[in-house]
């Protein structure tokens, strides 16, 4: 069975500092990987995804994630965060097929001025 572990439940950081949100997954078969973001009082939104090809994927607002098959990880990074990045971030895996997403427990990113 597949599972997702987000190693940090909360990450406080100062504005303009770099941040890394960690995600590890467990699966005996190939998976597709996703990061979703949930801003306060809003629904989940897709931030970025890895399906195939380059292991480094980027979002339009400066986040990037790298698929590391040997370490079964898909950590999310941003070199300089803004107050507006304050949100909860969810890592998820899918086998494709029926497109069933399995989510981690989430990491709450709090950006302080």
């Amino acid at each position, binding site marked *: 069975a597949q599972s*997702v572990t987000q190693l940090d*439940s909360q990450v406080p950081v100062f504005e303009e500092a770099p941040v890394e949100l960690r995600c590890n997954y467990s699966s005996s078969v190939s998976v*597709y990987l996703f990061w*979703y973001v949930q801003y306060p*009082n*809003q*629904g*989940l*939104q*897709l931030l970025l*995804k890895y*399906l195939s090809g380059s292991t480094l994927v980027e979002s339009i607002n400066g986040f990037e994630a790298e698929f590391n098959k040997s370490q079964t990880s898909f950590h999310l990074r941003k070199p300089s965060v803004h107050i507006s990045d304050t949100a909860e971030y*969810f890592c*998820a895996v*899918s086998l*494709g*097929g*029926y*497109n*069933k*997403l*399995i*989510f*981690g*427990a*989430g990491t709450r990113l709090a950006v302080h001025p």
Partner: protein
Amino acid sequence: EAGVAQSPRYKIIEKRQSVAFWCNPISGHATLYWYQQILGQGPKLLIQFQNNGVVDDSQLPKDRFSAERLKGVDSTLKIQPAKLEDSAVYLCASSLGQGTDTQYFGPGTRLTVL
């Protein structure tokens, strides 16, 4: 383009009562999902529809939960009778198809069972 709509946004009921949630997916999306998100946890898939057929309901507690998607568009999720542990946010999502198509989520319905 309108997003996924859900109603109500909030619901408070007492245990053993029944409740229903409604979802209207993005126009043209064939696949519809219901997730349960308990406080402090990630969303968990309850049921997935492809058009008006069920493709996965393995984690739906069928003794109390039911869902339907008549005519392959809107969907309702019902709980009868509710238990305290059903307190959660119920999320509806839709996608064009299956495979790796992006899932678009609604704002959710926050259910509190007293």
